[in-house]
């Protein structure tokens, strides 16, 4: 081998030499939003609205959990209701049938949902793109059909359980006040969102974003793709299961609707509208759309139509969702102000700190 040439120092340019600016306004908006939601019940709203909000908080956590799998990790799942419903049914069966104490049943339900997610992740690991969507759709529908068609007689009282009517959850309280349900669901949403954001910003979250972006480069960087896909499904399903258990406690029953395709599509719609891979976007979209469509007391068929229409419009005109569009808008406005803003724009759109 010939003599080594001396290594030249890289040329210095200002481009990309400074870390991405952390926006403080995001934290401000978040604090204002949580503050408003904390004080909303003090305005003596109707119990119906409190119930709509409570359901909205649980659905928002569910939509964010879809985003962990479908957005951050790029595994488009159309059967995310499966871990949600599994946890709801586990809660109902363990408390009513096996007589487990509620906290233990909830913990077991969340673990079971995570195990179901890990199973789906294992099955879907060799697949990519639309095949993941088809597999998860099929698994979700099988579970839904089993839940709809399977009825049995309960031990105590000999009532028919299962089927469309579902299975009751044995709750240690009678008629929880709408206020306590509201605050419990809000607390759960905050904790779950915080947990999911922490996961997104962890090393595992970084690797999952890499797997979603370019699986072959990730694999050539030593990432065991199958293991990380399984992790994404397990974590997303655990959060979906926690939301499902919360939902079962709120309505006092697990029903076949908890496993429905409509619920899976709803989560995917919220994530697409809010901005995939952002966690916060799907939470905001779920809250706004659910409160709007449910609060107006629209019939279910009209709601489904409106969800589909919203999804079509967003995919056509705002493919990045609300958060992506807001970022683009901010970067365009920032671009007029000078060079530094333009430098940040490139990074902020796709680079570090983007989620």
């Amino acid at each position, binding site marked *: *081998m010939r003599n080594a040439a001396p290594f030249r120092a890289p040329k210095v340019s200002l481009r*990309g*030499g400074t870390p991405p600016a952390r926006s403080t306004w995001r934290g401000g908006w978040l604090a204002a939003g949580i503050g408003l939601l904390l004080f909303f019940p003090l305005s003596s709203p109707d119990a119906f609205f409190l119930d709509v909000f409570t359901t909205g908080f649980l659905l928002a956590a569910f939509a964010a959990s879809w985003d962990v799998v479908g957005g951050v990790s790029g595994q488009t799942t159309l059967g995310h209701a499966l871990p949600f419903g599994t946890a709801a049914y586990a809660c109902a069966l363990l408390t009513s049938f096996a007589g487990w104490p509620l906290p233990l049943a909830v913990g077991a339900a969340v673990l079971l949902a995570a195990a179901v997610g890990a199973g789906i992740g294992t099955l879907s690991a060799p697949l990519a793109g639309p095949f993941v969507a088809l597999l998860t759709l099929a698994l979700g529908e099988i579970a839904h059909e089993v839940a709809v068609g399977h009825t049995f007689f309960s031990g105590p009282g000999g009532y028919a359980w299962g089927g469309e009517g579902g299975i009751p959850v044995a709750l240690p309280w009678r008629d929880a006040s709408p206020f306590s349900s509201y605050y419990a669901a809000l607390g759960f949403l905050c904790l779950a969102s915080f947990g999911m954001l922490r996961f997104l910003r962890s090393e595992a979250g970084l690797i999952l*974003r*890499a797997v979603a*972006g370019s699986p072959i480069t990730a*694999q*050539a960087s030593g990432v065991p793709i199958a293991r990380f896909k399984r992790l994404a499904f397990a974590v997303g399903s655990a959060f979906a299961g926690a939301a499902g258990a919360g939902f079962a406690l709120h309505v006092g029953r697990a029903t076949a609707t908890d496993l429905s395709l409509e619920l899976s599509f709803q989560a995917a719609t919220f994530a697409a509208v809010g901005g995939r891979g952002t966690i916060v976007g799907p939470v905001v979209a779920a809250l706004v759309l659910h409160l709007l469509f449910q609060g107006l007391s629209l019939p279910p068929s009209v709601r489904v139509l409106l969800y589909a229409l919203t999804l079509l419009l967003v995919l056509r005109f705002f493919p990045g969702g609300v958060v992506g569009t807001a970022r683009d808008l901010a970067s365009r406005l920032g671009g007029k102000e000078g060079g530094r803003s333009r430098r940040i724009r490139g990074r902020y759109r796709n680079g570090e700190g*983007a989620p």
Partner: protein
Amino acid sequence: MNTLLSADGIVKSFGPTRVLSGVTLSVAPGEPVGLFGPNGSGKTTLVNILSGLLRPDAGTVRFDGEEITRLPLDARYRLGIARTFQIPHPYPSLSVREAVRVALAVDAGKRKEEGGTREGEEGPAEDLIARTGLFNQRFVSCAQLSQGCLRRLEFARGLACRPKLLILDEIFSALSAADEGDLTALLRAANRDEGTAFLLVSHNPPLLKSLCRRILVLEEGRIVRERIV
């Protein structure tokens, strides 16, 4: 001769087309080897088989005395075989530093055992980024990098696992003179200072002669010549 990587009787066909017909080669520890051949001679297929992206129809691949024929790409990277791609596939939503951190995450456990820090792995990441001349682009999205910077990033990714063998598939093609100069200097430094062996695939005989001790010529799926430089 001590052997780091050896391939014995590698055969690969795609449908009725036989691409490799019994390729046998070996690379010694720290040895710089070149692979030259015309378009369609099977260079990339051979690289894909050596790096674990493809499995051969027949033949065996051994690394450090261990048979690795059925080991996938990621497991071979963890063993110490890193490869770069002719056409880089960048992560669209990650910055340069994050892309390097992904590759370093795999090596983090090893570094911890050796007494290095694990948390964040900022030290090794910044060091690698600086070595590959990407320091000023470290916060830029991978999707916005030029071809030259993408090749540098491929290099950084390859070096992150402190490989025993680096397989470079046409990494110098279509590069500016400055980028080519920097990358050849980096390759020489990795070979000289860290004893990294490399298998460099290239269409450029003068470049191969300047960097490699031995050049293998692949034609129609066979090694037809071997030249000591």
